[in-house]
């Protein structure tokens, strides 16, 4: 039920996305060779469709009633987990940053160093502190994947 209120926020985000997509769609030629339905035909249908459905989502979010008991029950359930959840959110954000950095480093630095570094940092972020698990196992896994893909499957890894 609480999710329904979030729907209003999501609908506004989607409408902002539609405005951006509509602006980009104006840059696509609207008519094609031999037909009125050009390259912008389907994009316009989808942008308008998402916008209309977002408005419907917003209205549904506004009309959904959340009772006081539901709010307090949800708050009680969340209270003991809150600090853990906050830490998890921070780690999650750091993890996304790690994934982007890994994607950038994969080709530039090479598979072996970038993957070992990402593996070790990831294990540390997941609160793994045993040396065997943090250093030795990642090195073995990364080396096995490298051997399997490069020598057995003939897939080039940078």
């Amino acid at each position: 039920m609480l999710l329904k209120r979030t729907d209003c926020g999501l609908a506004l985000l989607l409408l902002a996305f539609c405005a951006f997509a509509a602006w980009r769609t104006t840059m696509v030629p609207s008519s094609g060779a031999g037909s009125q339905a050009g390259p912008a035909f389907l994009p316009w249908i989808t942008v308008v469709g998402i916008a209309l459905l977002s408005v419907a989502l917003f209205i549904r979010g506004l009309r959904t009633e959340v009772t006081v008991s539901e709010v307090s029950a949800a708050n009680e359930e969340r209270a003991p987990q809150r600090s853990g959840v906050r830490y998890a959110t921070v780690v999650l954000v750091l993890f996304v940053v790690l994934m982007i950095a890994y994607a950038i480093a994969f080709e530039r630095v090479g598979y072996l160093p970038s993957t070992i570094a990402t593996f070790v940092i990831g294990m540390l972020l997941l609160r793994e502190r045993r040396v065997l698990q943090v250093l030795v196992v990642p090195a073995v896994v990364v080396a096995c994947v490298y051997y399997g893909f490069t020598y057995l499957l003939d897939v080039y890894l940078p």
Partner: protein
Amino acid sequence: MEISSYVLAVFDPSVLWIIALGTLGGMIIGALPGLTATMGVALLIPLTFGMAPVMGLNMLIGIYIGGIYGGCISAILLRTPGTPSSAATVLDGYPLAQRGEAGKALGMATIASFVGGIFAAIVLAALAPQLATLALKFGPAEYFALAVFGLTIIASLSGDILKGAIAGLAGVLIGCVGADPISGISRYTFGVSGFASGFAFTPALIGLFALSEVFVQIEKILSDRVERMKVGGIWPNRQEMKESGMPMLRGSLIGTFIGIVPGTGSGTAAWISYNEARRTSKTPEKFGTGHMPGVAATESANNAVCAAALIPLLALGIPGDVVTAVLMGGLMIQGLAPGPMLFQQNPEVVTGIFTGVFVATIFMLVFGLLGIRFFTQILRVPRRLLTMAIVVFCFVGSWAINLNVVDLYTMVGFGVLGYFMQKYGFSQAALCIALILGPMAESNLRLGLMSARDDLGVFLSGPITLFFLGLAVLSLLLPALRSWKQQRQAAKV
């Protein structure tokens, strides 16, 4: 007498051994995210140069069949579809694994893949030339109607129809990124050359299903909410087999039909079969929560496509999907021209291929059932280690498709998108279906309009289009009708 000697040639120990090796290799390739059956066949074609045609082609067919089946292993155990054709298996396979029934889910997937494969192999052997002629009647209007029917699956797959429709439309819009299929004009590429041909499908899928699940698992690990998954037995019980019987048969039929129609592929067949199983089920609400018929429907359909896709290839020289297009190369390397003349000039090859499909499917069943205990050992790996290993496979798998760094960004982007979709109740499956069918719908809609000078009536003119559009209307109306009935019954109580 001649035919029996052609059949017996496949049972030569050296040929049997090579088919077994191909099937097992295909299973491993299929289970590794990012490595597709197409890639496996393409990589190993050079090995067939020095082999006799029946031996070489059957090795490739073994890789193809094993590869399509192998995709379900990582889909069920890790929520990472090994191949795009097993994306639909994630929906019920992974919840079954979470419930401690990974062994049973893999058992059902293996049995269903075998049933679908054998069914299509029988059809291949009995009706190849006749069915291929029917498939030739498909024009843009028919393909468009088929795509529209496929897109209506979204209505019945999404718990929240409104959010499902938004996810579906977003998928169609994302599918528009890249060069326009008709005019070649760039759309939404932002000047990035890597997006010129659109988002690569496999990295997008890996991100959407696998990396997003990594983020979910991280949350669980850090809040100490990780439960160790149990493996359980491998044999579905009598009740589960009974429930899955019809979806399995229907999936085999759908997979066979879709496989015969060139250019559609096993991913489409799996989704349509899943939708039909859910639509006709007495308990549709169980689908998506770890329901055996869901696994049976998808796996029987995608494996039925393997044999069926060979029908237009062998009978008409038209590949049924991407893998058979690569297989066509394998045939030509052997100096064989696929098409009607192949049946007259090289009956030993055609009969050898028919027999090889049966043999490879049997090997797949044997290896699949024997390997379940081995495959499920993956669930005993410590969760932190497994999570990080999945990250590595996500990256290596996405890279291996095109050796392009843009695919890695695509995968990460779709991973973040998939995580938020999961968190806020948007169907990832709807986005996935739209990504597959959106481009097919668009190009055929516009080709149809071009050929009919913008007359929309072209999409209502033929019996095939009317059949699919009728099914699409049914597919949209039935879930609505069912929910209206349930509401009425609830009001009465």
